[in-house]
C-alpha cells in the first residue's frame, strides 16, 4: 500500500487490524496521533441552538430591538411575559385583504394555496389552524386545498366544505358563485345543500339558485382574465370597477340585460370597448377614474 493511501485509509477509519499494527509503527502515525490529541483542545464557539433560533425568529418577524441599558432588560422581560400570556390565551386572526385592481396570492399554514381577487378579504386563526381549518371570506377567492382535515370557507351567502380540492368562491352579497375544478365540494346555504364535482358550478342570483357546468381547469381571473357567461350587465360592470379601480355610472342603459363576454385585466381600453360595442353605447370619461356608460347618439 502506498503511503498516501495508507494515511487516507487510516484517517477514514478503513484500515484493517493488521494494517493498523503496521501503520502504527510509522512516523506518520505518531504525528497524526499527536495532532489528534492536541485537537481535543480545540474550542468551538458557543452556540446555544434554541436561543439562537428564537433570536433569529425575532429578527425575521422584524421585531428585533436592541436594549442598551439593563433597566430595559427588565422592561423587556415583563413585556415578553405579558406577550406570552397574550399568545397562549388570545388567538388573533390573520387577515388578508385586497383593494381594487389588486390580486394577492398566499399560502395558508397547511400550505394550501389561495389567490384573492380584487376587493376581497379572508380571515382565519393561524394558531388553531391545524385543528380547525376554517376561513371567513368576503368577495372572491380561488383555493387549492391540501388534503387533510375538513376545510371550510364561510361567507355571507353560504358555506363550502371540502377535504382537498381546487375551487373558487365569489360572494359579493347579491351574488354567490362556487366553481369546482377538482375533487368534491359541499356547498351549504339557507335554501340548498349541494355537492359539486369537477366542471360543476352553483350560481345564486336574485335569491334563485341553479346548478351549471363549466369547462375550466382553473378560475380564469387567476390568469388575469374575467369571463362572463350570460351574466347581468350590472355584475360585469362591478367586476370591471374592481379590476381596473374605476367607477362606472350607467346612464339610460338596462343593467339587468344579460351578456356573454370576457376581458383581460391588463387592457382597460379593450375591456371598455368589448362591453360598449354590443350595446351600441360608449364610455365617456368624466373625472379621474369615473366613466359614464351611455347610449351612442
Amino acid at each position: 500500500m502506498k503511503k498516501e493511501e495508507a494515511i487516507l485509509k487510516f484517517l477514514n477509519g478503513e484500515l484493517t487490524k493488521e494494517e493498523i499494527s503496521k501503520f502504527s509503527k510509522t512516523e506518520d502515525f505518531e504525528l497524526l496521533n499527536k495532532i489528534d490529541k492536541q485537537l481535543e483542545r480545540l474550542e468551538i464557539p458557543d452556540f446555544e441552538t434554541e436561543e439562537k433560533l428564537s433570536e433569529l425568529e425575532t429578527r425575521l418577524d422584524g421585531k428585533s430591538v436592541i436594549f442598551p441599558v439593563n433597566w430595559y432588560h427588565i422592561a423587556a422581560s415583563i413585556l415578553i411575559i405579558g406577550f406570552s400570556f397574550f399568545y397562549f390565551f388570545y388567538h388573533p386572526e390573520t387577515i388578508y385583504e385586497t383593494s381594487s385592481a389588486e390580486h394577492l396570492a398566499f399560502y395558508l399554514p397547511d400550505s394550501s394555496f389561495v389567490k384573492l381577487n380584487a376587493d376581497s378579504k379572508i380571515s382565519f386563526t393561524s394558531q388553531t389552524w391545524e385543528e380547525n381549518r376554517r376561513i371567513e371570506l368576503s368577495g372572491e377567492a380561488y383555493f387549492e386545498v391540501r388534503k387533510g382535515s375538513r376545510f371550510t370557507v364561510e361567507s355571507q351567502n353560504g358555506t363550502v366544505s371540502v377535504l382537498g380540492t381546487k375551487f373558487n368562491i365569489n360572494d359579493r352579497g347579491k351574488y354567490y358563485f362556487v366553481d369546482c375544478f377538482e375533487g368534491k365540494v359541499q356547498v351549504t346555504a339557507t335554501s340548498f345543500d349541494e355537492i359539486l364535482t369537477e366542471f360543476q358550478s352553483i350560481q345564486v342570483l336574485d335569491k334563485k339558485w341553479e346548478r351549471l357546468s363549466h369547462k375550466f381547469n382553473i378560475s380564469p381571473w387567476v390568469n388575469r382574465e374575467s369571463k362572463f357567461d350570460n351574466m347581468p350587465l350590472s355584475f360585469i360592470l362591478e367586476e370591471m370597477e374592481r379590476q381596473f379601480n374605476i367607477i362606472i355610472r350607467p346612464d339610460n342603459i338596462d343593467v339587468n340585460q344579460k351578456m356573454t363576454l370576457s376581458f383581460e385585466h391588463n387592457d382597460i381600453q379593450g375591456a371598455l370597448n368589448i362591453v360598449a360595442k354590443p350595446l351600441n353605447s360608449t364610455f365617456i370619461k368624466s373625472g379621474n377614474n369615473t366613466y359614464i356608460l351611455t347610449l351612442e347618439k
Partner: protein
Amino acid sequence: MFETAQDCCKKEVFETLYRTLSKDILRFLYYKFGADNHPEDIVQEAFIKLWKNCQHVLPQKAKAFLIKVSSNHMLNDIEKKKVSLNFNKSLTVQEDKQDPEFLMRESEFGDRLKKALEELPEHQRVAFLMNRVEKKKHQEIADLLGIGRKAVEKRIYSAVKTLKEKLGEI
C-alpha cells in the same frame, strides 16, 4: 401546480433544518474563517437568506445552500480578520506523564500546530478539521461541501503533507 417547493417556508420545516444544520454550519465557518470573523453571525445571516429564498430551496438542498451562501459571505469583506483558532489552555494528559519537560514540549507543539493550521489554505483546513475533530468520513465531507470524495481526500492529504513539513522534526 402550486404545490411545489414551498416546504422550507413552513415554520416547522425551517425550525427542524435550523436545529439539525446550524451547528454543522457553525463548525464549518469556524474552520474556514476562524473565531474572530464571527461565525455565529454568519450562521444567522445564512439562515435568513434561506428563509428569504424558501420558495426556491428544497429542504434536502438546504444544507448545500447554507454552505454556499455562508462561504461566500466573506468574499468581499474588507474587514476580514486573520484566521484564528482557539485552543483550550489546559492539557489533558495522563497523571504519570506530568513531568515538566513533557508538558513544555506538548504545549510548544500545540502552539506550532495552531499556527500551522491557521496558515493552511481555507479548503484544506476545513476538510482536515471536519475529518479529525468531528471524525466525519470523507464521503460525508464531500456531501456536505458538494464536491467529490477524491477532491476531499486530496485536500486532506495536502493538509497532512504541509503539517508534516512544519511539525515533522519533533
